[in-house]
């Protein structure tokens, strides 16, 4: 796996990583603070944002998730995007 990836791949991926990090943090926080209305609102806002970013990323670089959480092009393109330890 030595496919040269454009700088944009790393930028888009990092944007997703940043948004998803906010979601992990809010998720763990809400696990012990289930009544924080503002935090739930933030969680839902960032969930929407994350989904939108992933649609853009996957159109360009292939599916991010397996088992039906992402769509596939023809031919089966799970192998298209590089594995995280290769980039």
């Amino acid at each position, binding site marked *: 796996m030595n496919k040269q990836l454009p700088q944009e791949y*790393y930028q888009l*991926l*990092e944007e*997703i*990583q940043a948004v*998803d*990090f906010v979601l*992990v*943090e809010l*998720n*763990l*926080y809400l*696990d*012990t*603070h289930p009544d924080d209305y503002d935090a739930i609102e933030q969680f839902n806002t960032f969930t929407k944002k994350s989904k939108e970013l992933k649609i853009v990323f996957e159109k360009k670089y292939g*599916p*991010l*998730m*397996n*088992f039906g*959480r992402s769509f596939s092009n023809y031919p089966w393109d799970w192998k298209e*995007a590089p*594995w*995280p*330890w290769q980039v």
Partner: protein
Amino acid sequence: MWYYEKKLQYPVRVSQCNPMLAKFLIEQYGGADGELAAALRYLNQRYTIPDKVAGLLNDIGTEEFAHLEMIATMVYKLTKDATPEQMKEAGLGAHYADHDKALFFHNAAGAPFTATYFQAKGDPIADIYEDIAAEEKARATYQWLINMSDDPDINDGLKFLREREVVHSLRFREAAEILKEERDKKVFF
């Protein structure tokens, strides 16, 4: 069940080939206070812990697998271009003899991973306090690794992981209070 997402939780970059650093980092892959032990501990304890904190164990246990993948990526990138001679010089000759460059679940001294690294007592307070201790030990390990590493890119990733231990410890401390509140609730009929 679980889904895989083709991304790291936080970017892992490596400045240069450094098998000696990889040898130390493997402590957090297959060591007593490493990410595998953490993930298996929490995901195993969640079945019998009270519902109010089962979600937290589930979610932190899941995050630990993302950390395991980051550590694996660091080790892989630090060793992938090393010659057998460099592996030997770095103290990885014995590893190379058995595994080539493949990763293996052992600690920095080469002791293989064992389930005896963690416990499931079935007592919620005992289990959650073990979890707090596990996070503090992992945080300390990351600090010792940062102290020995002169790779600024690796250190960036290690500092992220160290901070996650701090947050997990805090959440587990909150969970301990939730468990005590549950335990001390008076039952009225």
